[in-house]
């Protein structure tokens, strides 16, 4: 694969892979991310969220990942039905699943975060870290981990946009506006769903 082709594939793999094949790959990677995240204390509690949290169960990790993914699929598929023509459900489901593959990297980054001196809050069932006290190398490792997660989060959103654009065929302002609206709705929906289910 040429260098240009590699970057093109990295940013938009959905030109090559979509449908149930993408769904299978995506679900496998999301499951792996949720399992590793439960060990590294990285939780994906929402449509776009990547958070470092107090220790939580594997069931919670998988539930959060599933709710976040499903909220995106439901909302963006509805957007596609209203604003695009002839969008297949398996393309939306598959490309969105595959777009979450960077979460595996985020889960691994969690192991970089020094877990000493964390203060947290378990109210409302959400294992939130409310304060950290790092010193020396811990600060370097912690800040590097945060920077990496931010990069991964931005990359994930770019992938998600390309997934939506490729599977709906929408272009330009219509694609951007419906995507942003859909993602915001999905994020709110996922937060409410997780509050109800916790």
């Amino acid at each position, binding site marked *: 694969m040429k260098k240009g082709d590699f970057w093109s594939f990295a940013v938009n793999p959905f*030109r*090559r892979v979509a*449908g149930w094949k993408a769904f299978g790959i995506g679900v496998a990677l999301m499951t792996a991310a949720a399992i590793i995240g439960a060990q590294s204390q990285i939780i994906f509690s929402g449509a776009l969220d990547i958070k470092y949290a107090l220790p939580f169960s594997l069931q919670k990790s998988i539930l959060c990942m599933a709710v976040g993914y499903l909220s995106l699929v439901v909302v963006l598929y509805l957007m596609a039905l209203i604003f695009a023509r002839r969008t297949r459900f398996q393309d939306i489901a598959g490309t969105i699943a595959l777009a979450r593959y960077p979460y595996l990297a985020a889960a691994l980054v969690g192991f970089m975060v020094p877990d000493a001196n964390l203060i947290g809050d378990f109210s409302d069932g959400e294992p939130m870290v409310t304060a950290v006290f790092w010193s020396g190398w811990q600060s370097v490792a912690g800040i590097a981990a945060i920077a990496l997660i931010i990069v991964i989060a931005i990359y994930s959103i770019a992938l998600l946009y390309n997934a939506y654009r*490729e599977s709906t065929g929408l272009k330009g302002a219509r694609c951007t506006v419906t995507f942003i609206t859909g993602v915001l709705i999905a994020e709110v929906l996922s937060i409410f769903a997780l509050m109800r289910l916790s």
Partner: protein
Amino acid sequence: MLPCYCPSCRERLKVRSLKCENCQTEVSGSYELPALALLSPEDQEFILSFVRHSGSLKEMSAQLGFSYPTVRNMLNEIIKKIESYEKR
């Protein structure tokens, strides 16, 4: 590729004459180029491939190495181009 637009004013070209290489007969007139001829060679090849695969985008995607929605988007683009040619 067959020239379809005037290099000077960008208006659509028409066919003025056609010649038989066998008997040298020349047929003159003013003939509109068909919409398919106005498409790029890549688009024409796509349409030929579409017909060869009996309209199955699934088979085309497997052969071209693109995903199904990508192939469908390519087809939608060609449909828009043809519709714009027919409107003029």
